[in-house]
């Protein structure tokens, strides 16, 4: 792997390797000193053109725990505000010879452009409504710790699929791991021909009982310019996951931040079936694993590199 742009670029084996690596980093995270020296002396640039709390902070922490120097840019207050083009920004930042560039952009394909314009490996931290691959990886990681096997699991992704990059990456990721994916939401929020991604479509929650996992999406209130739903009240009555709809045998996931009372009822957020907190916790180790994969993974057959890393990184166990 040179870049992480789309889940579509990853094989099942690639995904498993990253998740196994994340497991080994989880052990490090349990220690007093949570750092490993893998990226000592190297620089990771975080470039966030969109507001983000958990993604940007967990990428920053992940890079720091790998001992990298981290430069974080937000669009506000930078030369982007002065009208600098993405290309010029990338070429300027590339002059610092970064080991990797992590980019979040409101536009699909931005990470690809960064990869073209910079020599550095690029991690897509969300590009418009297209993809958010590290979110999908951390979701797989979280789920894998709770279930014996991902293969054959029935996963329902519920809500605003149209505007959701999380949905797109997760449909691809869950189906790549052998899950049966169904998307469900009002027809105005389900993209036409979304079946092409490898999922089936439902417009009601009537059969949600068949799901092993319900993955509720955030209603992206900030993107609701048109009349996608007549009212949030009506949306909630038909699509909200509440204690009545969530059975004790089902697991519940959500990428956060939750709109309480819209897509999720408060009672299920704190239920034992909810993996929402674990998802957030997984963010750092999975992003460490992604950075490791891109920056150090390729050196696995370099004996010097292995010698240096063996003491600090527990080699993955077979899944």
């Amino acid at each position, binding site marked *: 792997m040179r870049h992480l742009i789309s889940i*579509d670029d990853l094989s099942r084996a690639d995904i498993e390797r990253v998740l196994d690596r994340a497991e080994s980093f989880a052990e490090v995270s349990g220690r007093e000193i949570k750092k490993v020296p893998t990226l000592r002396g190297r620089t990771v640039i975080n470039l966030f053109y969109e507001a983000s709390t958990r993604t940007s902070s967990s990428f920053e922490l992940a890079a720091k725990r790998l001992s990298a120097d981290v430069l974080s840019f937000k669009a506000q207050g930078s030369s982007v505000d002065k009208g600098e*083009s*993405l*290309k010029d920004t990338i070429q300027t930042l590339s002059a610092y010879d970064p080991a990797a560039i992590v980019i979040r*952009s409101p*536009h*699909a*394909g*931005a990470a*690809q*452009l960064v990869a073209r314009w910079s020599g550095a490996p690029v991690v897509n931290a969300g590009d*418009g*409504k*297209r*993809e958010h691959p590290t979110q999908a990886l951390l979701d797989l990681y979280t789920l894998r710790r709770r279930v014996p096997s991902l293969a054959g699991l029935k996963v329902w992704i519920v809500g605003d699929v149209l505007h959701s*990059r999380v949905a*797109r990456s997760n449909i691809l990721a869950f189906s790549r791991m052998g899950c049966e994916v169904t998307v469900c939401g009002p027809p105005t929020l389900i*993209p*036409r*021909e*979304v*079946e*092409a*991604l490898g999922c089936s479509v439902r417009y009601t929650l009537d059969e949600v009982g068949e799901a092993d996992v319900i993955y509720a999406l955030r209603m992206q209130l900030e993107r609701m310019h*048109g009349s996608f739903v007549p009212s949030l009240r009506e949306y909630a009555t038909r699509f909200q996951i509440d204690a009545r709809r969530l059975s004790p045998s089902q697991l519940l996931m959500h990428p956060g931040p939750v709109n309480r009372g819209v897509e999720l009822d408060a009672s299920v957020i704190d239920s034992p079936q909810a993996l929402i907190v674990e998802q957030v916790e997984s963010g750092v180790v999975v992003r460490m694993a992604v950075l490791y994969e891109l920056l150090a993974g390729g050196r696995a057959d370099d004996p010097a590199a292995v010698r240096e890393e063996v003491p600090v990184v527990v080699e993955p166990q077979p899944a």
Partner: protein
Amino acid sequence: MSEPSLDRRAVAPADALVRGAWLLDPRSGIDGGGDVLLTAGRIAEIGPPGSLEPPDSAEVIEADGLHAFPAFVDPHVHLRVPGREDEEGIDSGSRAAAAGGFCAILAMPNTDPVVDSAPVLASLRERAREEAHVPTGFLAAITRSQAGTQLTEMAELADAGAAGFSDDGLPVERAGVLRQALQYQRLCGRVLALHEEDATLSASGVMHEGAVSALLGLAGIPSVSESTMIARDAALAGYEGGRVHVQHLSASESVAAVEQAKAAGIEITAEVTPHHLTLTDDDVRSLDTGFKMNPPLRTEEDRQALIDALASGAIDCVATDHAPHSREEKEQPFEVAPMGVTGLETAFAVLHTELVLPGRLALAVLVERMSAGAAIFGLPAPALRRGAPANLALVDLEAKWQVGEAGYESRSANCSFAGRDLTGRVRMTIAAGAVAYRERSFAIEAV
């Protein structure tokens, strides 16, 4: 009612003998080897190979192994003048046209300012008389500032030489306004060229709505955005007895709407671009902004329907919708980059390579459709006929080249086909009696 006027810079009429070319002019029923003698810019004689002797003053163009077609006519280009001279000019755009084998082009009025008054039109025509390498016509806007609310002074613009009317780039959203334009057509003649799109259906779309847009998370432009407007405007044209020309057809539903209107006896014509005939939304997967245009590239099924319609004549002509954009603007994320691609220099070669060589479209049909736009706009169609003005494209159908290998005549490089290997190269273009383009490598032997 006056004729549409085309302008170009002063030229020396050609005296030449085109010797040994294969002549193909489907409209005149010509398909065979022959010599063409040009005298003072007109076709003085057409004879069997070797039968014509050049007068002393004439140059001899050895065209052995080349095809001579009636030169092409493009009823849909953007020359970006006034306002975006950094992207294109009359000089560069018409040179690109000549290099593509075109002997006449019609420019759209969505410039800055919009061509919506006689003085703006007059200044463009004046510049064309200084700069244009091939006869160039200018359409005027249907509505003032293309705002869609108030008609331009259509009659006055027609008198000032407008080649037609169009709000291209935008639809005429209000049916009532288009109806008035159709009523005014009785006074001023000229065709109304329509960009068909329902803005409420296109919304913020940036590509065709379908499986690929679902995968990319891009807002889609549904096919019905185009076809429903065609149906509406065909009905209006039928009601008012007007004549409309549908620009850049992209969807199979649109083909059906045009066919239906034609069957109902409505005066409607349609054009299609080389990119819609050869590319699909699958190409957009790369998120390369060289595949971003409006209307968007649609599905393989749509593409096949467009080819069938071009072959059957349901679609009347090829038009490039040559739309130059600056590099900075195209070097942005797909959603932000402007819509449009260049096409003048590649049109024939692309269609020859992608449709004729695989046997999908007959060469004669392509050659006819490449200049059929002329008649739609009331211009004389180029012809290989004794006495006709010399409008010839000399083409080497075997020549292989790579798009962009030697740069572009156009000032912009936003070509969907950049880097593609094509077969078929225009060696020389004679437009309205004068040599407008010679490929550098194409040797000319003067007598």
